[in-house]
């Protein structure tokens, strides 16, 4: 199933695009499995995702932990810890 992946902040800059459509295999069931699969796709993905402590995720626009299931996710966002407010 196709998933729309969004990247923000330095994750977006390292990967070089803000968005991409991917079709991971059925064995990819959780966010961290998706990150592992993406990491194997190219050296830039691998470099962007190497430090998992600095990586956060949202599934269909809701913040989740990296071990969360993907379910029927249409949109997954990967980004660093947020730094809004003041």
């Amino acid at each position: 199933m196709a998933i729309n992946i969004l990247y923000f902040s330095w994750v977006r800059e390292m990967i070089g695009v803000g968005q991409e459509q991917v079709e991971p295999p059925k064995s990819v069931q959780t966010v961290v499995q998706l990150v592992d699969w993406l990491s194997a796709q190219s050296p830039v993905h691998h470099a962007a995702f190497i430090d998992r402590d600095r990586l956060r995720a949202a599934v269909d626009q809701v913040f989740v932990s990296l071990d969360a299931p993907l379910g029927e996710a249409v949109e997954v966002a990967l980004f660093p810890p947020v730094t809004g407010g003041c």
Partner: protein
Amino acid sequence: MLTVLVQDTAIDSAAALASLEVQGAGAVASFTGLVRVDDGVTGLELEHYPGATEAALTRLAEEAMVRWALSAVAVVHRVGRMVPGDRVVFVGTTASHRAAALDACAFLIDRLKTDAPFWKREDRAGEARWVTARAADDEAATRWGSGS
């Protein structure tokens, strides 16, 4: 009344404050965050996750509304390019009494830092650098208990 705005134009805090003075309420509290001149910061850029940002801010505003029985909440967050002195964020709350208005305002500004998808990049000496999240912000957000 619940207002959530994410905008790339200047925040009119006077208008936002006036909108919070609803009939019958006794207390309005507000917080305005400005771009600081920290160690020679000359500019700031705020990136966000369109759609998810508004949803996260609305969830927080609704939680505050219920928890402190507020009659009005306004959260206005700037995105895009800013310079020192510009308003980054405005949070305002309206309640019957001051304690509810002040506590709800503090809750919103603490939780907004950890729960809404914004990322800051500072310009310093001609170089742009992404701001790192601070552990102190996580602690400030945690003191309000886990989200609903």
